[in-house]
């Protein structure tokens, strides 16, 4: 009958009564996990949108040739494109086709197409390298020299407020996730203390039999981890269901910006790992709480 490593085994887990340790704790964790999943998904989605926005507008300018005479307009467009092709730091030049312009203007002008005498500006999207974007005034001057009717819009300038809003929302989502982690930890602390009070007489007997604090803490850790796992899976399941529903609604809107806030597989894997993180957090918090409480007993 040689004693082995001093920890309670499979059959000894019933040293604490079966069933949930602290009543509502799994459900509170489920709610926390649900909110954490939503906040984390929002943070990840907004991060994707910010990256997409950055990729779309980063260092991009749009040149409009606003000239009523179609011949002059076309001539200035051609020379502007030629000039751009010879400028250092220009990565891509794309003249927006009239069909695309027609599609963009369709909500305002109807489906009848652009009339021949309607002076629609020529639009040219230009992607610049970062160094060239830093010399935007020189590019602006070079274009105006050859195309006086050119208006140059820095896309980043008018999309900057949107980018700032997205970044602010990302920080907010991150803060919410951190708050949820804190609230979950506080819930576990309260549950662990309640469990200790409930089982104080059993703990005293175990101590007098020679159980170490770590042995006793392990019993509680395991039970709290199971409660946290249950709550985490329920919270993740409901959260994922809600996210799928929201995703379908966003998809139906057909918005490019909202669509870019979608969650790729990697993001879903991060969300799926949240319950595991919750279990680890709950176990650590429970262990520290219980060991500190036991340390005050003889």
């Amino acid at each position, binding site marked *: 009958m040689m004693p082995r490593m001093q*920890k309670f085994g499979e059959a000894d887990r019933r040293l604490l009564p079966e069933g949930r340790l602290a009543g509502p704790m799994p459900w509170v964790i489920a709610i926390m996990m649900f909110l954490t999943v939503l906040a984390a998904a929002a943070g990840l989605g907004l991060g994707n949108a910010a990256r997409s926005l950055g990729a779309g507008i980063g260092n991009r300018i749009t040149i409009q040739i606003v000239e009523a005479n179609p011949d002059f307009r076309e001539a200035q467009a051609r020379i502007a494109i030629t000039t751009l092709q010879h400028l250092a730091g220009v990565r891509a030049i794309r003249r927006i086709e009239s069909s695309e312009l027609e599609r963009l203007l369709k909500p305002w002008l109807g489906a009848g197409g652009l009339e021949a005498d309607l002076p629609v500006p020529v639009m040219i999207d230009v992607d610049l390298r970062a160094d060239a974007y830093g010399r935007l005034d020189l590019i602006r001057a070079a274009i105006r020299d050859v195309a006086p009717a050119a208006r140059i819009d820095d896309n980043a300038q008018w999309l900057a407020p949107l980018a700032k809003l997205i970044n602010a929302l990302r920080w907010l989502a991150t803060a919410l996730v951190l708050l949820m982690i804190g609230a979950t930890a506080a819930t576990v602390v309260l549950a662990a203390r309640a469990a200790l009070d409930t089982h104080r007489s059993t703990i005293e007997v175990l101590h007098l039999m020679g159980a170490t604090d770590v042995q006793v803490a392990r019993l509680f850790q395991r039970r709290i981890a199971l409660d946290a796992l249950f709550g985490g899976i329920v919270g993740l399941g409901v959260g994922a269901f809600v996210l799928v529903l929201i995703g379908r609604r966003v998809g139906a809107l057909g918005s490019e910006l909202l669509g870019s806030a979608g969650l790729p597989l990697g993001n879903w894997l991060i969300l799926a790992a949240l319950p595991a993180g919750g279990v680890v957090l709950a176990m650590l918090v429970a262990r520290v709480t219980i060991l500190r409480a036991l340390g005050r007993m003889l």
Partner: protein
Amino acid sequence: MRLVTSGSIVQFENVGLRYGTGAETLSDLTFTLREGGFSFLTGQSGAGKTSLLKLLYLAQRPSRGLIRLFGEDIVTMPRNRLPGFRRRIGVVFQDFQLVRHLSTFDNVALPLRVAGVDQRDLETPVREMLNWVGLGDRSSARPATLSGGEQQRVAIARAVIARPELLIADEPTGNVDPEMASRLMHLFDALNKLGTTIIIATHDIHLLSRIAHHEMLRLDRGQLADPTGALRNPPRRHGQ
């Protein structure tokens, strides 16, 4: 290595115990329990017997004085070393302190589980012990369904299952019939002969006559009534 000073397993020197800011419950206790001895602790209700036992089974630290247990000073010992000492002690509590949600079997197996004994290794000794105390057929019963005497026998079985070096019993025969009391005293005697040091707190004067070579400690209002030791080491009768 178990170091026991000059054959004594317990040494008290000028030990006092005070709960909170009240008067001392125990005062100036100085005595030793020799290794392998069998001692009775007597005294009226409120004399401090249970408090003295709490000091012995490490549920309480004294307010003053020195206590050496198994040769080591346990007053200043860090608490993380106490579990190792507690495993060398078996305790029969006056109120039994059985774990309510555990079966009789699991209550008796508790010290073995705490010590890390495998489930397959504890089945036989626990069953044998339950049979010995007459509870072989109640192994799955919960404490609430047992009579006072049965609970007491479970508490005794739990205290002795791990073959402790020091057995401390607080009124161990208070709730059992005379026949069972006699059997339990035989069990204690047999354990004592195997080397277990035993101290029993009791009101029952008849118990004292059942153990031939006992020592006696008598407490009176928190103090030893026999500070010279003459009473706790009575002269042996001829032939003993």
